[in-house]
């Protein structure tokens, strides 16, 4: 090992350590920003020392690539709206997967060009890197399309879907085994052509794996693809024999897996059920059996009634759902909370893990509206206190406050943790209509005696509440 190589390797080790320390600092909002900067610095270090590598002889493409990629990255990071964060993370996951897959591809082609025999380990690593990278790339693009609304959010299902996907996967495994064992020289079939086919097949598989998953299950998919992008980087690390790639990729892989598990638990569903279940493909099926209920069956309230109740309460809990973000009402909501707090009302927010479109999404949306994170509470922390809450304000949430999850063992969402809005002394629901949520089931909460419904657009309703509270 030359001195330069030694320096490079030690710098990589330092980078890996700094990534771990940086992630560790993400365990508190107070230190998180410093942790992110530390990880960014570690990445800069890794890039800088890589440029010392003697095998790098031409720099013009490197400079160009860094400039183009950097510019696009800066623009995207600056311009993206916080509501669009899930689709941007999806795109970034895809790019990460693509980069890792291409590194594996370059290694495959260079071995072929030089005619050097590749070891079994390296060969397997190349195939794994290609498969994971390509699946991550195309799967992330479909996830982006769904979140952005370019591709239908509804699950796309067809007959024998899992059999077809299984066959494609088996074929890919066969092709990979052939490429590893024989170099792919099969009856005039060039290894490079077979390898190209592997890319195409893996990308097709990525698309097919994501299209059957419904819009509201996207938090799970984005988390899972996040994990894949990490594993793809690890696989590229195995290909290159580079430990910093292996370590960093493993950290991200672990992170994505943890978030995936948290999201699945928050919906009380198994990962297999999310990935293969095509949940929500038949909305209304469950509700159709019962009698049709209308607005006449609920307590429709006016803005001044609701304002009165909130202003004279001691404790108010706000339960935001994705509808809040869609209506862009989080800033108005904070204004309402400010007015209440200045009157001495204690205001807290109950955040369900799947309230947004990715893990922690709602927290970011509220942080953007300048809501202090110290006012945000997790479901299990707020529920015990619910009976002493005077007014619980539900904005744009539905399934996450549906008592059926707790009370009805037969419900499709049975066992899913919910914010127990129904246990508050009074519940106020801001909603456009009585339409069911994503799970397609009726919500008993709306029909309870101590529930008031304030119909209308969330942003407009909250604006009216602010005006009414000011008058009191």
């Amino acid at each position, binding site marked *: 090992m030359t001195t330069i190589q030694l320096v490079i390797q030690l710098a990589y080790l330092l980078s890996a350590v700094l990534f771990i320390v940086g992630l560790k600092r993400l365990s508190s909002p107070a230190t998180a920003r410093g942790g992110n900067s530390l990880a960014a610095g570690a990445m800069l270090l890794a*890039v800088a020392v890589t440029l010392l590598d003697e095998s790098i002889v031409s720099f013009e493409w490197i400079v160009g690539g860094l400039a183009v990629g950097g510019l696009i990255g800066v623009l995207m990071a600056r311009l993206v709206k916080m509501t669009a964060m899930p689709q941007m993370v999806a795109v970034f996951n895809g790019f990460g997967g693509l980069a890792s897959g291409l590194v594996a591809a370059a290694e495959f082609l260079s071995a072929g060009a030089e005619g050097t025999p590749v070891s079994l*380990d390296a060969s397997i690593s190349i195939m794994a890197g290609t498969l994971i990278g390509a699946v991550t790339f195309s799967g992330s693009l479909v996830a982006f399309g769904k979140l952005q609304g370019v591709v239908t959010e509804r699950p796309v299902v067809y007959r024998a879907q899992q059999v077809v996907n299984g066959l494609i996967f088996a074929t890919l495994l066969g092709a990979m085994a052939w490429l590893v064992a024989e170099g792919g020289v099969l009856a005039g079939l060039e290894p490079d052509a077979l390898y190209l086919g592997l890319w195409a097949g893996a990308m097709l598989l990525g698309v097919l794996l994501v299209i059957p998953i419904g819009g509201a299950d996207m938090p799970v998919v984005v988390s899972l693809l996040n994990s894949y992008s990490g594993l793809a980087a690890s696989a590229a690390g195995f290909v290159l024999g580079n430990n910093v790639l292996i370590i960093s990729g493993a950290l991200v892989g672990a992170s994505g897996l943890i978030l995936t598990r948290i999201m699945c638990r928050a919906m009380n569903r198994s990962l297999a059920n999310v990935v293969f279940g095509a949940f929500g493909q038949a909305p209304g099926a469950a509700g159709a059996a019962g009698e049709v209920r209308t607005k006449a069956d609920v307590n429709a309230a006016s803005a001044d009634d609701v304002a009165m109740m909130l202003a004279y309460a001691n404790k108010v809990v706000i339960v935001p759902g994705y509808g809040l973000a869609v209506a862009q009402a989080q800033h108005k909501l904070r204004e309402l909370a400010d007015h209440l707090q200045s009157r001495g009302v204690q205001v807290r927010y109950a955040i369900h893990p799947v309230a947004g479109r990715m893990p922690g999404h709602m927290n970011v949306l509220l942080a953007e509206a300048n*809501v202090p994170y110290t006012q945000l509470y997790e479901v299990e922390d707020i529920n015990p206190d619910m009976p002493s809450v005077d007014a619980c304000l539900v904005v744009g949430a539905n399934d996450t406050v549906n008592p059926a999850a707790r009370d009805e063992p037969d419900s499709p969402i049975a066992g899913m943790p919910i914010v127990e809005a129904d246990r508050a002394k009074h519940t106020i629901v801001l909603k456009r209509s009585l339409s069911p949520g994503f799970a397609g089931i009726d919500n008993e909460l709306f029909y309870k005696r101590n529930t008031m419904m304030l119909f209308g657009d969330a942003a407009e309703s909250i604006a009216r509440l602010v005006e009414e509270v000011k008058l009191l």
Partner: protein
Amino acid sequence: MSGTILVSVYVFVLAMFTGFEVITKVPPTLHTPLMSGANAISGISIVGALVVAGLGEGLLFTVIGTVALVAATINVVGGFMVTDRMLRMFKRDTDASGPR
């Protein structure tokens, strides 16, 4: 199976465990920044892309390397920057009343 790959497997498995330990402690309120930050870290493939793009072994490799480099750079730069943008917004009770 050669010794080198075995060492790599060791490194991978231990790093996974480290990841589980460290990331389990991240509170839900920071899960989105965690994801975008971790995402930026997975752009570490940029290291591999740099080498491929700079090998000077013909057009094919340069093109593959450069495409990988652009993709990884977007991932890294965009990921860390947007994470910073989000984390800047997180405020405690005390400083929330002040100007943004």
